């Protein structure tokens, strides 16, 4: 069968605004690929979207077990999308273990598609089912259950393909994908091309996947069980321009490439593989024709110290890691601070402590980024708030590092790193400049003489005659940079290094507020929780609550107006995916009695969780006001 253009669906189709789909199955079932391909189709269709891949740390946990379940959730919409969705409208479960671990999240009356063929006695037992949930009627009442024997339909479609049973088994995710393409009325032509390209080195597998993909599509159309398909129109309420779909790690890597062009310098990346940061290393390794050198070091410490060596040599220097890796780099971060060399450290945060939850997201490295070094060691900290924002913040990290001659920590997280969203491609001319001026004049050269405005010392490239000098981790003389053990000098150096970082506040945008500049409650967040906090705040505002949100991207130093903002609200709520870290810093710096909302489950906030917390805190404000006016009344009397 050959399809040149999408067939007009014969069945009725219904328009919907937003759909949340979760694909889940065994880690060998190819759910990440299914999700990614469906995401591409949604993006090409012009929907706004947000994705949440969720997979186990093991490459292949034992097949069929609960530990081996891998999932991919995406929300796509004709409206602006802030999060991958609290709960799926549609759940595709490829085996009993996937059903068991994901069913609780499915909305009542949601669409539930299961691969009937995988519900064998053996798989049911591995998932801990005593009886087959598909047969006891429990699911039919609560959900719109569709039992499709995807395994068998795939086998039938490929009966004469000449592929082995194992190879055929691997194609079944494309049946699922085809079915979802039909259900959401997507154009299959680009996807057929995608598959052919993706498997171009294995033409037999490419043909099989295309065949199964189309079989899934036609199954939706012709089988009697599905009555309706749906239409999610392109989003119109988003800024005009050219878009592409992008994950946080991709955006981070592209931001680093942009920094190369904006600075005119070469970039050196020293890195050691670690989940979930490795993709940045992979991607930058492709771009050696952009003046980028990537060095897969023997360990985390070598990754950062090699980068410091390159910074001394006059390159843009970068090291990429996740929490445990940043812990190993702490001493070297102090060296970069002491030698006042520009260096960007990117920490793609994951669940901790120790090895923790490598593939799950968390915001628990903020205090490590702020304080996790010996001695007084202030380092600027910034954080990206959406996958696409990783691009902007990578550029910002290099801008600050070079301008202020300092290491800079950029925090992203597993949720941003692997999640995707449409990205409005930036105009390169509008990107910030990264100005570099190496000193070449030997007359009057003092290694630690500083710029009056930025307090940065000058960058000197080895190879410059007459400027030979030595730097290192020992305390420096205030001006000459020679080793100094002088007590007053040490204190002066501690103070000036701190002042240099604090002064960056003059060079970053004032904090923006989503909503009114005053009110009952301020929701203050940072990093990857932007979507959930903004959406929750908007929902509450729409219902008349006096709540606003502010989302920090610069964390050290904070934007200059943050204190004023905090004082303009009766109560401050700080939701974080940790046990309370930003809240400690805010309380200490601003003496504000902020309240926390903390989730430490390796998962992002659901909008509903934040809404509930906002309601509760606004309630407290209201109750206190009632009480206070009563008291005041008594006082007046």
């Amino acid at each position: 069968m050959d399809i040149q253009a999408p067939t007009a669906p014969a069945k009725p189709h219904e328009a919907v605004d937003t759909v949340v789909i979760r694909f889940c199955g065994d880690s060998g079932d190819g759910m990440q690929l299914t999700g990614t391909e469906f995401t591409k189709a949604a993006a090409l269709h012009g929907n706004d979207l947000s994705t949440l891949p969720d997979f186990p740390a093991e490459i292949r946990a034992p097949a069929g077990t609960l530990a081996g379940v891998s999932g991919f959730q995406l929300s796509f919409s004709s409206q602006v999308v802030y999060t991958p969705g609290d709960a799926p409208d549609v759940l595709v479960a490829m085996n009993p273990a996937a059903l068991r671990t994901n069913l609780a999240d499915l909305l009542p009356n949601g669409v539930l598609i299961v691969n009937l063929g995988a519900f064998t006695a053996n798989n049911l037992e591995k998932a801990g089912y005593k009886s087959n949930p598909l047969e006891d009627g429990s699911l039919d009442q609560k959900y719109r259950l569709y039992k499709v024997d995807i395994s068998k339909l795939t086998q039938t479609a490929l009966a004469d393909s000449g592929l082995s049973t194992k190879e055929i088994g691997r194609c079944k995710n494309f049946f699922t994908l085809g079915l979802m393409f039909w259900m959401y009325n997507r154009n299959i032509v680009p996807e057929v091309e995608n598959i052919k390209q993706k498997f171009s080195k294995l033409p037999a597998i490419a043909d099989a996947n295309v065949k199964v993909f189309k079989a899934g599509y036609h199954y939706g159309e012709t089988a009697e069980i599905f009555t309706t398909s749906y239409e999610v129109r392109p989003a119109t309420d988003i800024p005009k321009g050219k878009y592409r779909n992008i994950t946080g790690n991709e955006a981070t890597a592209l931001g680093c490439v942009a920094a190369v062009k904006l600075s005119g310098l070469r970039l050196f990346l020293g890195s050691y593989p670690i989940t979930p940061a490795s993709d940045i290393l992979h991607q930058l390794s492709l771009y050696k024709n952009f003046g980028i050198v990537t060095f897969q070091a023997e360990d985390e410490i070598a990754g950062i110290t090699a980068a410091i060596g390159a910074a001394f040599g006059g390159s843009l220097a970068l090291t990429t890691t996740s929490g445990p890796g940043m812990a190993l780099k702490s001493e070297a971060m102090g060296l970069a601070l002491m030698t006042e060399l520009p260096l960007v450290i990117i920490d793609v945060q994951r669940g901790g402590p120790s090895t923790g939850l490598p593939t799950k997201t968390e915001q628990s490295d903020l205090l490590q980024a702020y304080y996790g070094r010996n001695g007084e060691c202030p380092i600027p900290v910034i954080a990206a708030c959406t996958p696409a924002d990783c691009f902007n913040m990578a550029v910002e990290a290099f801008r600050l590092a070079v301008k202020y001659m300092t290491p800079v920590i950029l925090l992203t997280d597993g949720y941003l790193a692997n999640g995707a969203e449409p990205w409005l491609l930036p105009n390169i001319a509008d990107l910030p400049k990264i100005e570099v001026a190496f000193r070449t004049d030997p007359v009057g050269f003092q290694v630690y003489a500083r710029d009056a405005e930025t307090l940065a010392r000058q960058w000197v490239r080895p190879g410059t005659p007459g400027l030979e000098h030595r730097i290192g981790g020992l305390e420096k003389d205030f001006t000459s940079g020679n080793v100094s053990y002088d007590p007053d000098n040490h204190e002066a150096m501690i103070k000036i290094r701190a002042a240099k970082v604090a002064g960056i506040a003059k060079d970053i945008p004032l904090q923006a507020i989503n909503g009114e500049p005053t009110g009952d409650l301020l929701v203050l967040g940072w990093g990857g929780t932007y979507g959930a906090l903004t959406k929750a705040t908007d929902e509450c505002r729409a219902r008349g609550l006096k709540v606003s949100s502010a989302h920090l991207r610069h964390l050290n130093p904070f934007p200059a107006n943050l204190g004023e903002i905090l004082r303009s609200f009766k109560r401050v709520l700080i939701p974080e995916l940790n046990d309370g870290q930003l809240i400690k810093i805010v309380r200490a710096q601003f003496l504000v009695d902020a309240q926390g909302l903390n989730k430490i489950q390796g998962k992002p906030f659901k909008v509903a969780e934040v809404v509930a917390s906002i309601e509760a805190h606004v309630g407290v404000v209201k109750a206190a006001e009632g009480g206070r006016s009563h008291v005041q009344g008594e006082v007046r009397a």
Partner: protein
Amino acid sequence: MSTNGTNGTAAAPIKLTRKDFTSDQDVRWCPGCGDYAILAQVQKVMPELGVARENIVFVSGIGCSSRFPYYMNTYGFHGIHGRAPAIASGLKISRPELQVWVVTGDGDGLSIGGNHLIHALRRNVDLKILLFNNRIYGLTKGQYSPTSELGKKTKSTPYGSIDHPFNPISVALGAAASFVARTIDTETKHLQEILLRAARFKGSAFIEIYQNCNVFNDGAFEVVTDKATKSDNQVVLEHGKPLIFGKERNKGVRLTGMFQPEVVTLGENGITEKDLLVHDETAPNAGLAFLLSQLEPPAFPVALGVLRAVERPTYDQLAVDQEKKLLGSKGDGDLRKLLHSGETWEVS
């Protein structure tokens, strides 16, 4: 206040002298330390290399030896403990035109920084690595090091060390180092010769320098440095020459049928020079060099000189080649094209 860096002259003079490489900083090693001798020889050979002062960088870690860069009037970087090979690798890979030296010690290079040392050597990054081996921790005031002998009594081993020591040369050879040599702080001529050979070698060059710590481990190498005993306890390797040593130049090293070394006396039992092991620093197989690295008194003489010098492509050169090749096939990277690659769509 003195300036860290310039000793006046801006442009590189045509003919430099030892003085040009001496910085304005007071040298602060203990009086009598072997480091002084090494510093003097390094400063002495520098002008002979024909490399402009501004293109030379000395990188170090932590320890007595790691103060070295402060005393050289070149570019210098005093790093953190053990990490000098990694810092130097990043510098050399990003700036291949610089000549980069690493100064480290037995604790810095073989204990806390052992990992970086072996990986720099295996990659063959074009670094000149000087490992000052005094078989003790000096800066922390006298604990045993990874090269201290078994049974050694120190502050941290009051009942004697039970820690089997590393042989630095064996470690380097095991890490596939392409140039490996051993010399002694007090053997000034030999030291100079080895430094020059290392500097001119293309690829990572590792030199173990026996260095006396007269405060915490005085006389550690006495048997190979003392005039009375040294001739019988060191064999100076020369490429293509048989291994002959001894006060009378009548002793030699030969291999048994089982490839074990054996000390023999020339003229005894009909043994002639032809029976002796002939040194080949370019041997394709590093086995012979490894065997030589392990010779130790009292049973054997210590092998001094270049144990191995076999060039192979350097990491930094391979990186340059790879980039050139990619530039040839793909051209200079275009940011706009890159950002707009993949599937894009217009919202209008």
